């Protein structure tokens, strides 16, 4: 049973270093050959201080969480059943481009927990997992919002 009292609960704060080597690896793993992610000289010629972070790179947050299993732990704490849960959607907000060399601070929390009737009977629960990434000036740089959907037990 999903614990709706978890809505809004903080799941921790951690650092997210934006690293050049990891950016290159991630770009390769998404077939992205844009030199803006691989070549610092190219990025500088374009007016940026260092290579740019790929748009969905915040997805690598799992490497920097307080514990390796923080997402699974959160789902357990929420009372979600992995066998009935799927990843529904992800939203990336980029307030400004982010560069290799930055160290961001991530505040992770549970967002809204909502329910609606499923088309085949039973209920579907929508659980939001939020991450806000702040820079060294404490300004919001990025946000990542994931929605997990659990189909109700029949």
């Amino acid at each position, binding site marked *: 049973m999903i614990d709706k009292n978890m809505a809004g609960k903080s799941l921790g704060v951690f650092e997210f270093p934006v690293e050049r080597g990891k950016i290159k*690896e991630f770009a390769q793993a998404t077939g992205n050959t844009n030199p803006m*992610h691989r070549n610092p000289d190219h990025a500088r010629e374009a007016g940026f201080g260092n290579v740019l972070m*790929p748009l*969905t790179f915040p997805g690598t947050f*799992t490497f920097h969480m307080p514990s390796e299993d923080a997402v699974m732990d959160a789902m357990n704490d929420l009372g979600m059943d992995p066998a009935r849960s799927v990843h529904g959607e*992800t*939203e990336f*907000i980029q307030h400004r481009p982010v560069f290799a060399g930055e160290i961001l601070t991530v505040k992770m929390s549970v967002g809204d927990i909502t329910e609606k009737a499923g088309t085949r009977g039973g209920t579907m629960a929508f659980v939001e997992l939020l991450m806000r990434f702040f820079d060294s000036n404490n300004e919001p740089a990025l946000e990542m919002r994931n929605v997990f959907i659990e189909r109700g037990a029949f």
Partner: protein
Amino acid sequence: MKNTGLYCEDVSPGDALPTFELKVTRTHIVKFAGAGGDFNPIHHDEEYAKALGLPSVFAMGLMSAGYLSRVITDWAGVENVKRYKVRYSGIVWPGDILTFGGQVGGKAGDRGIVSCELHASNQNGEKVIEAEAEVLLPRRNA
């Protein structure tokens, strides 16, 4: 603009965004697992996936989201993307051939904000991932 040279005035609703194909393999999945940090065995452990009743492992949604993002970043420049929201509408299996693409939706001309719709379809014409994106393009006469 420094990166792609695309200005707000140059785009119109209905314009096609870049399109490309990917034949998905287990190697793509493994590379993305390592790069992205998703070690859920359902994506790389065949025995585990089959024990759950699945025909095989399947790709993680964020892998499709990563590939699809190139449609908007190759076109507008990653530095100009403000928002990218994806919905995972279908499962991606090894062997699937995905076609990625999209089009310009609308412009809020006075602010340079362009909204786009993106998606990837598989070889059966089914949409496996659907997305909306907002970019802020520079204006030529700003």
